[in-house]
């Protein structure tokens, strides 16, 4: 595998994982403060100090990119937005690997 392939696949995998991380968060309604998270997650959000991250992602996606802040279904839209990015990243990862067996030249297997 070429180094560029490995780099691209790495980026794709990270993007895909990152987006899947935000998907359940979107389903929860995009909470930004610890007490809005369900039980066991509360402590995690405080101890890792994730509040700020969630706050800024929410700002950027809801108000910035999608402008769905007034839509009652905004959390589902954010979910599908992240799912879209995750799928595109996954597809790019697959293509980068898969394109290596597209052939312009066929060498016959020896008999």
């Amino acid at each position, binding site marked *: 595998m070429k180094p560029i392939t490995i780099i691209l696949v790495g980026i794709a995998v990270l993007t895909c994982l990152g987006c899947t991380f935000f998907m359940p968060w979107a389903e929860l309604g995009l909470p930004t403060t610890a007490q809005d998270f369900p039980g066991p997650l509360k402590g995690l959000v405080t101890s890792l100090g994730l509040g700020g991250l969630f706050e800024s992602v929410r700002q950027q996606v809801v108000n910035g990119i999608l402008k769905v802040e007034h839509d009652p279904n905004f959390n589902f839209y954010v979910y599908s937005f992240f*799912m879209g990015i*995750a799928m595109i990243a996954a597809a790019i990862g697959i293509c980068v690997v898969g394109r290596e*067996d597209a052939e312009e030249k066929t060498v016959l297997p020896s008999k």
Partner: protein
Amino acid sequence: MQKLYTDPLTKGMLLLEDWTNKIATSKYNPFYYHGALPQFFLWVLFLTGLLLFAYYIPTIDNAYASEKLINAWTSVDYITNTIPFGAVFRGMHRYAGDAMVLTIVLHVLRVWFTDRYRQYRIVQWLSGVVLLLMVLFIGQTGYYLVWDDRSLILTRMTVSAFDALPLIGGPLKTWFLNGEEITNLTLSNFLFIHIGLSFGLLFGLWIHYVRMQRPVITPPPAINYILVAILLMVVAWMPIASGNMAQLTQQPTSFEIDWFFLWPYWMMANMPLGAYWLVLIVGTVLLCLIPYTAKTPPVEAAEVVLNKCTGCSLCSKDCPYNAIEMVPAPAGSRFKLLATVKEFRCSGCGVCVGACAFDAIDLPNLLDTDVTSQIKALVQN
């Protein structure tokens, strides 16, 4: 030999595809899945449509507005705002329809520009035109089903368009409304047309594919992911919403146009109805005539050498246009089957010649014996 690919459009298309190959390689070149793209969106439409169908109620009743009112508009509202992810599924259904039209247009342009549209492909072209009309009409009925302001105007405009037709106009209108005026029955008819014709598409597609062996109808998974992802992102980026519930007593006048499906209504609004029908009909006829405009010599169909054919049926399996039928061999033959070429289906490609290990099938204008001696001559001097 006739010069190939001299048309600038063809050359441009080939350059574009070459450029796409450099990035995506032939394995992921979307142009090489031109027919599979609309087919994929059709499956998306079936799946998302199934979910909508589960909750949709085809009535216009709003007599019980005070009690828990149930009609088409409220059921769509329920799908959108109460069912989790209902808005996303509804959006995907809407945009997959648009995407299907878009990819059909790409498909048509590609088969046209790369010269894949005439002679033995005529059944594909003509059935394609019918499919396109069906898809457009199905999409429009989808817009009636929402039963908001826009649905009401569209329904009324369609009725007056039918009214403008001589003779068949009246019956068409009655069929369309399922009666003489808009009632609950009208919406059940719309739902029936919408779903019934969608399944009718499968029949149309069968005709579209029947002359092709192994039609390419599924893009590779990675392309499918991208197609779905694009839908999801468009849904999030441009959420759809219904207008106000249709009120039969009101006369809404303006509406937003979906340019993929609703352009005929733009035409209706901007020209006399007679002219509208004329443009539609003449346009369709012209579309059907495109394949007959090219001046090309007739195809010289492959010919089976009767006494050599062993009936192995390799040629008939490999023929890309399903042009070879294996028939029982004539009495007295040593073999069971005999290959027969259906001339009107044959493209003259010669794939059958490559498939036959017995030299039993030939292109009349390029005998394989001639090719072999040409090869020998080139090697030996």
